[in-house]
């Protein structure tokens, strides 16, 4: 007995020392005054301290949780040698099935190809490859794309500067990102979600552009021949302050109902959250040239074909129509400018017709830096300077040399940032990009350019953001809940079991200390449901003791001595405690398996709580009882 107790004494003292050691950084961190905190931060000692403290989940410290999905259909389309209507059809059907909940993209794709009797080799692979080889090749490419995306996102986030981000792959096409304590969620999203595909494309000749506009006009005019805008009550005339800019003759801009242009079809024309359902058209032109009427010539403001932002969606819609697509030269495509310009009280977006084939892409980029422009035109505005690698330099030099006096568009994610006229051959492989709104945007652009482009676009499928104030509130509230619960339970135990209750209370305090120590030591994440789990543990932890005490009472009632009653009580309750706790532990494990973030936090605290409470009930309280009864023989036990 004595020796066994000695061993227990050592064990308990050791555990207690360890718990204090593990919890010390957390205690220190939470008792820091703001001034002290700042001081430590300046010395660079705050981060190591945080790293040793209990790690708080996003719901407690605030932050962002994002799940991105890699757009596999787009990736597969990019891999295809030819991109035709049939392929688009197959891929869009596959995508729909994918969204309907099916999992395996490749299986779905194969299935859809087979249904139409198209061999994979029609689009992918090299001559002579078997279907199986092509399938494996696509799968490998998809896997590569995932890994590359993961790497690129990690790079971007690292450069963005977030402490302790989590970036991990989930399944075959998802990436989970956790960004604790982020202050500007929108900026973070803009940075992470960008495909960041940088392309250099030559502008088509202006004559080709106007030819396309003419053709579209004719097509639309034929179709809408009967529609002539009339002055009705709802079509209120809008005075366009930029009317002088439009064409040679003064234009009579007015707002027309959308239906006038599109019949009864319902469309939204609002860009940038404008609930404006009318378009701005040049009345003089509308009748003959319904498409041209949506456009403006802003040459005297240094822009060419521009579109009032109200009309952007409508123009997009027209351009997306299949019959209109046929009027656009097959090697050309329309692209919008990244920025809008303000002329008078109206905003415009510039429209470009560029070659489909990119002359150069961001693949050849080696570096990108933000500087302040020294240009007369852009003085003080941020710009991004980039450097190309050797191969890129060669291509760039050739392209610029061959296209002097022509315009080259610099396009990032399908938005034209600038389209300068090439003055001279550029042999040194460096250049600059302007057209950013502000310093932040320029910095973001430099980061994404350095980190590289994602192999395929990514989309947010799940996003959870918790503001820091809500996190702090949650901490405070749950702290109070835990404290109040503690008091109630402890008081109850003392009232009901007297001295034995006090022993159980002691065990409860140890329980809490050990639980937190385990969390801190193993860097488990404490979430709000996690705190709920702790509170729940407070209630349930006494259970093991209650079981023992009730057994001891029963034994005492049968007239046994205190000593034997205690022994029998523990012995008999042990099996029950074990069975009861193992099952709860099992549910906790299932919860951990299926849950994400916050729920996992709950499963963790619940599981640790159960294990710790078994230890405190079976070892710690037993130890106290043994110590008490070892000194003198008790005839009466306060229980």
């Amino acid at each position: 007995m004595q020796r066994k107790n000695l061993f227990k004494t050592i064990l308990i003292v050791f555990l207690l020392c360890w718990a204090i050691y593990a919890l010390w950084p957390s205690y220190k961190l939470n008792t820091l005054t703001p001034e002290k905190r700042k001081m430590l931060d300046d010395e660079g000692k705050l981060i190591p301290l945080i790293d040793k403290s209990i790690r708080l989940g996003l719901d407690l410290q605030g932050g962002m949780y994002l799940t991105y999905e890699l757009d596999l259909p787009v990736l597969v389309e990019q891999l295809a040698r030819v991109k035709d209507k049939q392929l688009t059809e197959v891929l869009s059907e596959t995508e729909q099935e994918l969204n309907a909940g099916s999992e395996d993209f490749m299986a779905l794709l194969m299935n859809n190809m087979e249904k139409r009797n198209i061999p994979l080799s029609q689009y992918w692979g090299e001559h002579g490859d078997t279907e199986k080889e092509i399938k494996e090749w696509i799968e490998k490419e998809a896997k590569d794309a995932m890994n590359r995306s993961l790497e690129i996102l990690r790079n971007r986030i690292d450069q963005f500067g977030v402490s302790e981000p989590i970036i991990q792959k989930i399944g075959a096409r998802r990436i989970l990102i956790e960004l604790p304590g982020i202050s500007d969620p929108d900026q973070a999203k803009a940075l992470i979600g960008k495909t960041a595909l940088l392309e250099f494309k030559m502008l088509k000749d202006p004559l080709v552009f106007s030819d396309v506009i003419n053709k579209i006009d004719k097509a639309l005019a034929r179709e809408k021949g009967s529609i002539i805008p009339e002055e009705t009550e709802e079509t209120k005339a809008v005075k366009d302050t930029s009317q002088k800019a439009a064409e040679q003759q003064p234009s009579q801009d007015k707002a027309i109902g959308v239906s006038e242009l599109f019949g009864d079809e319902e469309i939204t024309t609002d860009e940038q959250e404008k609930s404006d359902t009318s378009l701005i058209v040049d009345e003089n032109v509308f009748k003959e040239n319904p498409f041209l009427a949506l456009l403006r010539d802003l040459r005297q403001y240094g822009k060419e074909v521009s579109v009032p932002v109200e009309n952007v969606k409508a123009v997009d819609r027209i351009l997306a129509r299949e019959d209109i697509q046929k009027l656009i030269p097959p090697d050309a495509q329309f692209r919008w400018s990244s920025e809008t310009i303000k002329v008078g009280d109206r905003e415009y977006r510039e429209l470009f017709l560029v070659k489909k084939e990119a002359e150069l892409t961001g693949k050849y980029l080696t570096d990108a830096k933000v500087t302040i422009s020294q240009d007369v035109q852009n003085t003080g505005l941020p710009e991004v300077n980039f450097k190309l690698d050797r191969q890129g330099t060669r291509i760039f030099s050739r392209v610029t040399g061959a296209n002097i006096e022509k315009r080259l568009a610099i396009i990032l994610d399908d938005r034209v940032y600038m389209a300068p006229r090439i003055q001279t051959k550029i042999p040194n492989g460096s250049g600059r990009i302007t057209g950013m709104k502000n310093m932040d945007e320029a910095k973001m652009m430099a980061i994404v350019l350095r980190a590289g482009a994602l192999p395929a676009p990514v989309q947010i499928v799940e996003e959870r953001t918790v503001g820091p104030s809500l996190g702090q509130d949650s901490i405070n509230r749950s702290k109070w809940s835990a404290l109040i619960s503690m008091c109630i339970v402890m008081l109850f135990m003392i009232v009901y079991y007297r001295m034995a209750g006090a022993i159980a209370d002691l065990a409860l305090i140890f329980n809490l200390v050990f639980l937190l120590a385990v969390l801190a030591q193993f860097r488990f994440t404490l979430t709000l449901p996690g705190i709920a789990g702790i509170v729940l543990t407070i209630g349930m932890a006494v259970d093991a003791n209650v079981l023992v005490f009730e057994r001891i009472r029963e034994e005492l009632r049968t007239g046994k001595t205190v000593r034997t009653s205690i022994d029998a009580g523990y012995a008999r309750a042990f099996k029950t405690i074990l069975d009861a706790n193992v099952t709860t532990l099992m549910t906790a494990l299932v919860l951990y398996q299926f849950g994400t973030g916050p729920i996992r936090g709950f499963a963790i605290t619940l599981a640790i709580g159960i294990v710790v409470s078994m230890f405190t009930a079976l070892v710690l309280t037993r130890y106290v009882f043994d110590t008490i009864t070892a000194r003198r023989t008790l005839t009466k036990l306060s229980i």
Partner: protein
Amino acid sequence: MQFFQTPHIDFVARRKIAYVISASLLIIGIGSLFIPGRPNYGIDFKGGTSIVLRFEKTITAGKIRDALSTIGLGSSEIKRFGTKNEFLIYVEQQKGTSASDMAEKVEGAITKTLPDDSYEIRKVDTVGPKIGEELRKAAVLAVLIALLLILIYIGWRFEFVFAVGAIIALFHDVMITFGIFSILNFEISLKEIAAFLTIVGYSLNDTIVVYDRIRENLKVMRSESLATIINTSINQSLSRTIITSMTTFFVVFVLFLFGGEVIHGFAFAMCVGIIVGTYSSIFVASALVLDWQTRHGDKEHLRMAHKKK
């Protein structure tokens, strides 16, 4: 202090009444699932965007609704969230708008229409429709796996009939809690599912304590009938059942009162679950063992089976 000296309540004799109560609760609960719009799945399962905003000044839900109407959303829902200046705005995901743009749209509309009411974004949740579907499947799977594991464990530690009794009792607890959520039209999200699973664990804990006593008493009370053994076992463990349930109920009730809006549903589910779980481990789980056994076997069989363990 002691609540019960040695109670002699005939629970077993009253099991038929308990069955009627349980069955009616189950029928009402399950029946309520057929009311359109029930159960009220939260954002985790139905997808969409929910934003919690805290305004600096007092504001009405109507004003927010007006602000939102300027951008023409699909179905939206505005409700108070905790304190009086805090609102939760739920909007369905719209076709063609990416999931995460909805939040920006809503914020934009409010900032523009109500420029004088400054606010702080407390929380934004956006769940794509596909994720919602997946989470729903995962939740159902989790509950089923948990039940299966329990079935196996109890089948191994006790007898198969005990495992069946426990599983039915657990199913009963979860379904009644679920039904109460449905009747009150409370929202069910991931946290509530976590609560349901915890109820499974908790109620089982209670049930096992009673089963354990039955197992023990089968060996000691050789001459008694199974009904007497079960009744004695329930009575012997009654004190413990009540005390543990009380302390646990205290804490989840405190959590329900003071824990804040974020875990309100979770705490409520736990409160209900503890009451139902305690009731079922006293009245349902063991009674089921008795009824099954009188129909399919005898006491001797059970006794023999437990001798080995």
